[in-house]
């Protein structure tokens, strides 16, 4: 059984990295909201969402990511995603999330091949 979402925020360069662990679904609302609230206080650079340690994203999880993305755009903060498996990269393409956030090339992302949301 997977664990509910946990999000750790670390300042990084002029922005922040949010490391997501567990599953992103209806139980992840507080963790995601809190993580962005913390991340937005770090400079003005990009916010990196690291999905390498997540193992499940459902449609409610997609909605949480959409909400975070909308807030970041209002704040003028670019969003990047890394560590997504090919399956979730496909979902990000289908939902057009990839039009609004940069997806790291999985070839340069060892986490994506070793694990990540699957």
């Amino acid at each position, binding site marked *: 059984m997977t664990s509910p979402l946990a999000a750790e925020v670390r300042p990084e360069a002029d922005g922040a990295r949010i490391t997501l662990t567990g599953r992103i679904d*209806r139980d992840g609302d507080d963790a995601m909201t809190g993580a962005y609230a913390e991340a937005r206080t770090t400079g003005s650079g990009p916010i990196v969402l690291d999905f390498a340690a997540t193992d499940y994203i*459902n*449609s409610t999880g997609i*909605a949480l990511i*959409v909400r975070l993305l*909308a807030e970041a755009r209002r704040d003028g903060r670019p969003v990047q995603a890394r560590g997504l498996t090919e399956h979730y990269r496909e979902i990000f393409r*289908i939902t057009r999330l990839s039009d609004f956030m940069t997806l790291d090339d999985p070839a340069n992302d060892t986490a994506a091949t070793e694990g990540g949301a699957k």
Partner: protein
Amino acid sequence: MTALTRPIRRLLGRSSPDPSPEPGDTPAPDAAPATVDELPGAAIDIPESDPLFAYLQSAPGPVDLAKLELNSPSLEQLRGAGVALVVPLVTQGELIGTLNLGPRLSEQEYSSDDRRLLGTLAAQAAPAIRVAQLVREQASEAAERERYAQELKIAQLIQQQFLPHELPNLPEWQIAAYYGPARVVGGDFYDFIDLGEGRIGLVVGDVTDKGVPAALVMARTHSILRAEAPRLVAPGAVLARVNDLLAAEMPEHMFVTCLYMVLEPATGHVVFANAGHNLPYVRTADGVVEFRATGMPLGLIQGLTYEEKESDIGPGDSVLLYSDGIIEAHDPTGDMYGFPRLKADMETELAGTELLDELLDRLHAFTGRGWEQEDDITMVALRRSPGAGGVAATDAPAAAVEVLAEFEVPGAYGNERVAMDRVAEIVVPVGLEPARLERLKTAVSETAMNAIEYGSVGDPGVPVRIRVERRPTSLQVRIADAGLGGAVPDLAEAELPDLDAKLAGLQKPRGWGLFLIQQMVDRVEIVREGERQTVVLTLELGGSGK
């Protein structure tokens, strides 16, 4: 008179001087002869209500207008047009026109010889003119009838294009159809629609009214059905969609009854929905029963839903779909054929064409000789061979449906992942590619989550039932819920998620579930039975699907 005066004037045309010239309209002596339509002066119509009409009808000969004292608008009109003498054209007591003459060129009055000559001319011309009029009218009516017959013939040819040119050739099934419009064209229709994976959509419909109006509505209904059935598949959704489209454009007082059935020939399983149509009769080993489902006819009001029912046609069972024409036929005493008689007729071992022939023979025996068919008659009969089903024959692997597993999960949130993981384990023997397995897992998880939310309302005591089937060319996961919280939004009606709108705050961030499900598998159908609903996810096997 209106219709009579004008033709006479034309008949007199070239060979006569203008009988009623307008002042200044007299052509120059060297002018080219005028054609009929170029003759100066307007035709003067004398209505039957004008006293002049009755006067002319009974006048013994030419009438000198200067001496006539009548309170008549037509008389004033004639005088104003310069007419001096009117010669009535009367045949068989009917005034069919007049010959109107202006003053003599010599400015003398018309002599008694002139009048006698004109009277004789009128007496001889009137019957000939009447005959010419009748010939022209009949020729015109004949041309009109011929044109109408030609148009009907074309309408019939067009309508025939909407009926199946051939019946499905299904192993272990005997299928026959009969279509008999009451007029050249009709409002009944039937069709077989290939839905893929060996499934057949079977439809029988009946438009109110007969003839051309019904045929036009039939054509439109058929077109919509053909377009929507392969896309939506689920009979209830198909009828709801057709109803919405038809209701927006249906002429007043018209509607369509329709029964739509999806048949899986391999198993005999049927799912059907009904829009006010006659219930099909099914002859089983235990007697004749009905496939019951209720719903309003198509085209009356938008936004209707249609109950879906499922059943199985067992080996040896026979099904009859039919329109009103047969049950509403009357015998010479006015007695109606009716449902009980038709139901009793189904108590026969006959099937296919033989069954339909027998039913028609019985109908004709009932109605008697010289019966004028009152309404269109349509019948579709199908029978499953007695030896069908059970263990699939080795030469018919297409009939095999293997149930890989059937299980339940509690209707509490979080169990969508349990369902997903269970299905992933169950389908291991199928050997899906990893990417396709991931897509199926997402589709199962999302569908199970909907079932928990809509069907169980999160109540762990209201389980979600899941069945995994391996079919000859596909894998199916059927997820059934209890429908406690209402229906899952219709796939065709659900709002498409728009990320731009969501980011702009114009759409809620949620609303991705149905969209994702549809993207992840090759086909999604929703089968409704009352409040309960089953979502069927299909992945094509053999490399042709997602």
